[in-house]
């Protein structure tokens, strides 16, 4: 008598890719706007980028219903923080909060693959990359989602991450200028769109700097 397996799954994968790159005084967070299920497209116009605080922006691929729920929880927790501390959460603080929130559901996880980008307390760009249950790391750049396997090797090649085994620890903040980083993002997404069926339609880019947030939208292949 074999074990009976569920005839439905609480999860679905809505596809899509998210990328973030940290610079010396900026952070670029980008994601495509295609939302799919199976081999169908649900919409070509869905934003996967969400501003959590003035200096922290979250981009998540995976199951968008879980992503939405996760964003709501973080937004409420941020409000509580603001009431208690009279200021916005910093990006590193938000990074820890996100990790804790994800682990809280260790045994029924949020099916969300997150990249958190923003500016740290010194105004330098920072990117945090996560798995579904909250394991996270501060990095100079990251890609998550269906196109991440196509994009990450290329970013490794271009942004030359120093070995994490070297001491003293060097952070991988790219010396690239902001326009160069935005251009790199557009290039990687154009390439990923070619070979990943779940990535395409439009590319949304958010650029975070000390004086504010700027958004750019670029068209991608729609096939």
């Amino acid at each position, binding site marked *: 008598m074999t074990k009976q397996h569920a005839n439905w799954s609480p999860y679905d994968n809505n596809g899509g890719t998210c990328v973030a790159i940290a610079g010396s005084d900026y952070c670029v967070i980008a994601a495509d706007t295609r939302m799919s299920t199976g081999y169908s497209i649900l919409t070509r116009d869905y934003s996967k980028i969400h501003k959590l605080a003035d200096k922290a922006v979250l981009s998540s691929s995976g199951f968008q219903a879980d992503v939405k729920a996760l964003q709501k929880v973080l937004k*409420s927790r941020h*409000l509580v923080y603001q009431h208690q501390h009279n200021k916005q959460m910093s990006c590193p603080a938000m990074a820890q909060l996100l990790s804790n929130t994800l682990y809280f559901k260790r045994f029924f996880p949020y099916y969300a693959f997150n990249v958190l980008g923003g500016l740290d307390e010194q105004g330098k760009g920072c990117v945090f990359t996560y798995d579904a249950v909250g394991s996270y790391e501060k990095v100079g750049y990251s890609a998550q989602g269906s196109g991440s396997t196509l994009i990450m090797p290329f970013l490794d090649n271009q942004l030359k991450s120093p070995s994490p085994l070297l001491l003293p620890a060097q952070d991988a903040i790219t010396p690239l200028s902001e326009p160069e980083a935005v251009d790199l993002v557009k290039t990687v997404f154009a390439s990923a769109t070619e070979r990943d069926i779940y990535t395409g339609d439009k590319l949304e880019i958010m650029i975070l700097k000390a004086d504010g947030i700027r958004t750019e939208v670029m068209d991608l292949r729609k096939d």
Partner: protein
Amino acid sequence: MFRNQYDTDVTTWSPTGRLFQVEYAMEAVKQGSAAIGLRSRSHVVLACVNKAQSELSSHQKKIFKVDDHIGVAIAGLTADGRVLSRYMRSEAINHSFTYESPLPVGRLVVHLADKAQVCTQRSWKRPYGVGLLVGGLDESGAHLYYNCPSGNYFEYQAFAIGSRSQAAKTYLERRFESFGDSSKEDLIKDAILAVRETLQGETLKSSLCTVSVLGVGEPFHFLDQETIQKVIDTFEKVPEEEEGEAGEGEAEAAPAEQGGDGGGAGDQDVAPMEM
């Protein structure tokens, strides 16, 4: 109010049908420093008097942001007020989370009132010793409510609570009929004038009062000292300036803004207004 044998327990009725502990809790509200609220059709202003214990200490926080669209001013036991503010913030956040829309003010005050009522019917509790002026904006317009320790709540066009609040109430009673159509600036001015009434002769300075505003298209925020001082200057003659400063009596009598502008434009006769 005199001590009697029915006032020890909040769960003991007096023969005349009163709960003395609850009434004593309302007395605590009257002892706190004044808090004032007024509303127009589109805005709500909350103001309070900041009295520090001594020159060395900072003053107590008496106005709290509950959400972008709701603020609360308290009078009485400020510790109780702080705890209730935290409860209100939590209610607002939970409502927002569940319904993706701002908590209507009327619902919030009912939750608060029910919470207060519980403390009047449990022998191991005591009533909250704080009165709350809850001001907020929702789909049905701008509202101002007063929540008592008794668990009652009332809606007001304008109200004042705390010590010497009667003076402010008298001022507000004279003027409240015009508040509905008041501009934001006029409403703020009336609030500060009402605060002045409670000071009873003491010079009104911006350091003595805290003012907060919320309204249509304007989330809850505090006014900074400079803005408050500018409003005070429009109606208050500053006594120290009349005595000193090159004896330019005519310049001092004019409103502060004109004096400041005149000084800047190279008019050497006008002494600069130092605050």
